[in-house]
């Protein structure tokens, strides 16, 4: 039996009512007669999308289905690019290596859990891709990973290798452990306990990484020279320094958990000093205070729409943050950071129309093309364009309306969530539950 089908059947037993991938279409589909919100290339009324081998081949009107290609009727519905969550912690067997402050070697990509039902939750909200991240316990956490929500597939197949390699940094209350009670006789507090210490420890590690890189450069130079010295020994390998070297060499980018404006500006300072790229600030509840600096440094933000006031540093997190920054030229995405909010990211994005005055396309961009750009995957996903991978969601109403509902989620041309199918299975299960049972306990 094919491994995928076996996985599907196993999960079908465990989760009788779970939305399951309906079947593999072999990546060949024709979506007919929907309102197509391409995000980057306008809206097509009564439009069709032809998908072959998991790739979008045509977007337009009156496209005929080649023989054997399954047709999905989207009449009256809205077809959008699969939603991308720029910041979550789902589908992982571990989030925080909080025992030490500096753990760049702790890579969440090595603990991907493809059986996490949060993947199904994500699919039910039209989410096809997530950036699932190391937690915020440490100033330098670890590398993050980008996954497609291919429920039923093994972990390796979920990983999106085209994505930028990202390294999690964190600042502020979580790092300085401000909610932790220090007990007499308990373990001593972990350094750092202040924002000063946080900046200092990051600087220290980056300085160490520079020395480390220099040692290796010297060694490699000597080794490559015409007459390498006898008994030339390589410096020791240090997994932490290896990761930081990749950051400083531009092979990775930083994604930095930050709340307050000051710590963000100081981190930008560190990035300039050491020459690494900050791809985005996470949460960034005071980004609106420093929108000019963020735009100038080409640093994006990945934020909540309005979940705020849950800790002191989130007390000035205004719902205008995302919309205001977007208008100021900052690349903004709306993230979930939650296994629940992930299924209503479209609702969250729509709030920027009220708070910030974005139009429907701009608001939809915050959960499609913008996160794709932040993750470096905008060449392959994030909009409905010919040549891109067929990650698509179908909604019954405009996705920026609060009355909307996701009806279908497609990844690489395969249907992974189908509400119609789910309803059928539910009805079937209800019938079976009502049918008189033979034997067993009364």
């Amino acid at each position: 039996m094919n491994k995928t089908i076996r996985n599907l059947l196993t999960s079908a037993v465990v989760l009788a009512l779970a939305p399951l991938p309906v079947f593999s279409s072999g990546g060949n589909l024709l979506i007919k007669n929907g309102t197509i919100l391409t995000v980057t290339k306008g809206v097509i009324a009564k439009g069709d999308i032809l998908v072959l081998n998991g790739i979008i081949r045509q977007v337009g009107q009156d496209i005929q289905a080649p023989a054997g290609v399954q047709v999905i009727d989207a009449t009256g519905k809205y077809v959008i690019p699969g939603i991308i969550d720029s910041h979550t912690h789902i589908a992982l067997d571990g989030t925080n290596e909080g025992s030490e402050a500096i753990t760049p070697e702790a890579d969440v990509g090595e603990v991907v859990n493809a059986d996490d039902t949060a993947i199904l939750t994500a699919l039910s909200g039209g989410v096809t891709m997530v950036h699932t991240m190391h937690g915020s316990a440490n100033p330098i956490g670890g590398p993050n990973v980008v996954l497609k929500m291919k429920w039923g597939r093994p972990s390796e197949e979920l990983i999106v290798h085209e994505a930028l390699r990202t390294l999690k940094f964190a600042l502020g209350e979580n790092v300085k452990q401000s909610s932790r009670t220090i007990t007499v006789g308990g373990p001593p507090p972990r350094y750092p306990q202040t924002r000063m210490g946080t900046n200092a420890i990051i600087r220290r590690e980056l300085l160490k990484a520079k020395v480390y890189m220099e040692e290796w450069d010297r060694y490699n130079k000597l080794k490559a020279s015409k007459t390498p010295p006898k008994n030339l020994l390589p410096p020791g390998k240090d997994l932490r320094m290896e990761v930081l070297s990749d950051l400083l060499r531009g092979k990775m980018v930083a994604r930095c958990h930050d709340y307050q404006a000051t710590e963000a500006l100081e981190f930008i300072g560190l990035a300039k000093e050491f020459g690494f790229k900050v791809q985005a600030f996470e949460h960034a509840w005071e980004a609106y205070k420093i929108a000019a600096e963020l735009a100038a440094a080409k640093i994006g933000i990945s934020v909540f729409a309005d979940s705020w006031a849950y800790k002191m540093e989130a007390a000035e997190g205004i719902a205008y943050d995302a919309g205001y920054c977007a208008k100021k030229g900052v690349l903004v995405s709306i993230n979930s950071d939650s296994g629940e909010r992930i299924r209503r990211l479209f609702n969250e994005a729509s709030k920027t129309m009220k708070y910030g005055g974005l139009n429907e396309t701009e608001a939809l961009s915050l959960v499609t093309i913008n996160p794709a750009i932040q993750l470096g995957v905008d060449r392959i996903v994030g909009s409905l364009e010919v040549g891109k991978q067929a990650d698509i969601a179908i909604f019954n109403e405009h996705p920026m309306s609060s009355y909307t509902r996701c009806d279908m989620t497609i990844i690489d041309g395969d249907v992974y969530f189908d509400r119609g199918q789910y309803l059928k299975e539910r009805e079937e299960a209800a019938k079976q539950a009502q049918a008189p049972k033979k034997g067993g306990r009364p």
Partner: protein
Amino acid sequence: MTKRIFILCLIVGWAAGLFFAQTKPAKVIAIKGAKIVPVVGDDIDNGTILIKDGKIESIGKDVAIPNGAEVVEAKGLSAYPGMIDSYSILGLQEISGVSATVDTRETGRLNPQVFAIEALRYDSMHIPIARSNGITAAIVAPSGGVIAGQSVLIKLDGWTNREMVIKNPAAMQIEFPAIRGGRGGFGGGMGRGGVVAVDATRLIAELKEVFNKARYYNKRKNFASKNPSLPIPELDETLEFILPVLKGELQVMISVHSDRDIKAAIQFVKDENLKAVFFGVEQGWKVADDIKIANIPVIIGSLYDMPPVWDDGYDSLFRNPVILNKAGVKIAFSSMSASIAKDLPYHAAKAAAFGLDKKEALKAVTIYPAEIFGVDKLMGSLEKGKIANVVLSDGDILETKTNIKKVYIDGKECDLSNKYTELLEKFKKRG
């Protein structure tokens, strides 16, 4: 010269006349040209709402606007009744992670003597945000233990906590001990699973015993008041504050979640002969008919949560209000929040996305909560004689993109600025 003085006197007299003419009689406001959505009855296109003495004096298509009325041109706008949040912690919590700002839960299991109104922070930063999204009244409820305390119905306007009271207490809050556990999911959440499942049966027995004791306590008090030779029972704070419930003067709001617990709670309400409303009720859809037969209204908990168990289906929280509504149970939505109490309309819209009739969704944030809390003669719809809680919007108030243009509470136009707008304006100045 005299002529000049004469003219001056004329001007002063005219100005004074104007002044008194405007301030002396009650202020009359005429909202003109709006699409009126009264909630009860049909929508009125291009209608007028006349507000006098803080009340709706008249409403309709052909309403004569008296001289001197302040006319508010509302062409292109829609007029709705202010929304009512049926369970919030507005004023009891500023920043959830900073315990100094949190007053939601008292310690101990039996706290009928604690009143939400007495801790209500009237200038909470969250209240103007909710108000500026069209919410004009809210239940503020304590949680925790078994009897959590007394909730209050407030209007979202006022200079002091007591000024904000519409009905106090609104209900005595009971967290029904969970036999099968409450809702799981992310973060647990307040108002849910207040008590661990293991000793639920014992706790229900304890609750019943408290009610019995209160009845006996009441009897002894009554006897003593009629017969001076009998001793007055020693004050028992817990029992004393349960008495209004036993006398039928006050309803209980029972926080209950699983189907099994809901059935047990229905039995409890019957046994104790209480006037009750349920809150949470995540598995209500499984026992909708039982709830209907018991005639108990339901406050739907926040829809920003996961199903209690996966087998209920991914959308069980969303279809729950749909099924309850179809079964004839009166439902109302709630934010269960302070910081995002403003999202109340979107909980209603979410249920509509999964099959709830849009008009019913709107009623479940306006007239139904008014009925549930016994204030439907005062508010919950736009009708003649009701308090003028009016919201003017540029679209459907359950839509996220809709902007709220004006909010009137008691016929008074509210300031729509809030912490969001203040910080925005401040940093806009940076350019």
